[in-house]
């Protein structure tokens, strides 16, 4: 069974209220930080913890914080990215809904470490009821002296507010989020300058995911070394995984990084196996953007190693035979699911969500959606599969922000691993409307010695 650093108290009745949260050890990290730590001490603990961004990219948090520019007289900001929109991901919503004060606590200590006196939580507009939960908790925190002027007599002034988006996946990209927070369309910015130098209102800004900020609380409480004891190698600590699809127990799980994928899918403490006794066909382990894995590469890597829930193991084999931990949006597909239909569904999503700034993404996602629609509906041609491959390869790496890559990768991986299923749709157009293809045959992968 994995440890719980974030969700330990999530089941306690009334933990969303200040009194119950405080009684269960809440706001200890703020007391500790303000009384006995300097901002640099906190940064040091975060670096030691090995914490990596939990939104998807997995960039080391301590390093991201250390890039923050500190010009004299210019306010700095911490912005919490609560724009959770990656298909398959619903962990931040769970955390904010159950224990809103944990995020607020994390915002206070993190902002203290960064020297930010005014920070914001940007939450997707569809989570408006969660925004209200957060605002209620923020009010309680003000009323109890954890926010506002001279917090707990420390001399540290800190204001926190929460502000909504209005339906745009792209605003999960940090510069688009900043644009949106400034009241503009969510068009990503060209980088450099990075937000650490010129972010919100052209001021130095750190943007961190909800779960990342929450994880700073146990790191400050127990020390970075203690946090780093959990996990394997550069994958330290615990991770919230959102599990969905054809499994017995969908939901949010906090796991020790390093847990085996097999145990996560089949273990009774986690997903509890495939629903209705069916066979596993495929898995998207880190949100819709990451490469889909065929059944034989889910629990074992191409090298024959056990596949683990870590940044490194999930990406073992690169995009040829691996995937990514991403946001932890873990989607499981049984033998009755159609990969062509799923790929079309995702392509439609990315086309809908492209902001339209860059031609390869704006046009390419539309083309992929149309070609995949034809293939799925029995109107595809053999050359469409190569056309799809060609389009995705011309989007990847050619756009301002990573949405282009995110749109290209699922298509590339689906063709790479499930080409025979795509070809079957072309050869058997009417049959493919009636039934599903089933499992694909296991491929042998050559090592790159040739």
């Amino acid at each position, binding site marked *: 069974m994995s440890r719980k650093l974030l969700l330990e108290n999530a089941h306690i009745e009334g933990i969303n209220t200040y009194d119950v949260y405080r009684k269960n050890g809440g706001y200890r990290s703020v007391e500790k930080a303000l009384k006995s730590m300097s901002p640099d001490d906190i940064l040091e603990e975060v670096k030691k913890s090995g914490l990596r961004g939990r939104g998807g990219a997995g960039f080391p948090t301590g390093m991201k914080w250390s890039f923050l520019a500190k010009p004299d007289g210019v*306010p700095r900001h911490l912005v919490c990215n609560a724009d*959770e*929109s*990656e*298909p*398959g*991901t*619903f962990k*931040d*919503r769970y955390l904010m809904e159950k224990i809103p004060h944990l995020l607020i606590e994390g915002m206070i200590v993190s902002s203290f470490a960064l020297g930010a006196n*005014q920070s*914001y939580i940007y939450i*997707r*507009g*569809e*989570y*408006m*009821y969660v925004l*209200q939960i957060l605002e209620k908790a923020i009010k309680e925190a003000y009323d109890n002296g954890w926010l506002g002027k001279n917090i707990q007599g420390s001399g540290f002034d800190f204001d926190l*507010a929460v*502000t*909504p*988006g*209005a*339906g*745009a*996946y792209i605003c999960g990209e940090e510069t688009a989020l900043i644009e*949106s*927070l*400034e*009241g*503009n*369309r*969510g068009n990503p910015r060209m980088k450099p300058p990075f937000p650490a130098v010129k972010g919100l*209102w052209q001021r130095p800004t750190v943007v961190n995911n909800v779960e990342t900020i929450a994880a700073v609380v146990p790191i400050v409480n127990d020390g970075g070394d203690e946090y780093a004891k959990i996990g394997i190698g550069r994958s330290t600590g615990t991770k919230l995984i*959102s*599990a*969905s*699809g*054809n499994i017995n127990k*969908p*939901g*949010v799980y906090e796991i020790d990084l390093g847990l085996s994928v097999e145990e996560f899918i089949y273990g009774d403490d986690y997903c509890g196996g495939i629903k209705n006794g069916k066979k596993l066909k495929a898995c*998207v382990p880190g949100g*819709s953007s990451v490469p889909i894995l065929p059944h034989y590469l889910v629990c074992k890597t191409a090298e024959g190693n056990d596949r683990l829930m870590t940044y490194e193991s999930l990406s073992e084999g690169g995009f040829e035979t691996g995937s990514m931990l991403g946001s932890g*949006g873990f*989607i499981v*597909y049984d033998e009755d*699911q159609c990969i062509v*239909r*799923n790929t079309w*569904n*995702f392509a439609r*999503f990315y086309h*809908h*969500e492209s*902001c339209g700034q860059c031609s390869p993404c704006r046009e390419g996602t539309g083309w992929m959606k149309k070609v995949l629609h034809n293939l799925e509906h029995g109107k595809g041609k053999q050359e469409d599969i190569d056309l799809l491959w060609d389009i995705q390869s011309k989007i990847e790496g050619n756009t301002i922000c990573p949405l282009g890559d995110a749109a290209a990768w699922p298509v590339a991986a689906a063709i790479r691993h499930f080409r025979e299923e795509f070809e079957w749709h072309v050869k058997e157009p009417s049959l493919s409307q009636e039934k599903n293809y089933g499992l694909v045959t296991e491929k042998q992968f050559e090592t790159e010695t040739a």
Partner: protein
Amino acid sequence: MEENNNIAFPQSLLDEVKRITDMFPEGKQKSALLRVLHLAQSHWGYLSVDIMDYVARLLHLQPIEVYEVATFYSMYDTEKVGKVKLEVCRTGPCMIEGAERIISYIENKLGIKDGETTEDGIFTLKSVECLGACGYAPMLQAGEKFHEHLTEEKVDALIEEYRKKPVANYMGLENE
């Protein structure tokens, strides 16, 4: 510029606008725009040009600054919609769990297609992209409420309920 002076928030909402703009530093009131547009849409049901012009005056913005935002984000309606929008998630995990079946069931039940509004003006059906409820699929959102683990029976019951009281709260406000 011609102004439609009949459009104005009641005092309670003007107070709310003040609270929202106060969250941001002096001169950065544009940051309040998305939330104020949500308020306006909750209050009036959709964002007409007159309403967007009113929001522009309220926040000291050019009308174009409001239009370009209102047309970028998928939650804003610039055309009239039903009193209750049934927004069914259609993405990946929801599709696996039968979102398409739920969408056609609602289409048949209400006699409208995806994107249309019933003649009595109560319901609009809209398929939308991932709402972050993948583990509780299939689901739909009405106002700010998430209806999860949908079945045909659950859809029947919630449609019945909204027919009796066609109000879908958003931001704690009842639309007019």
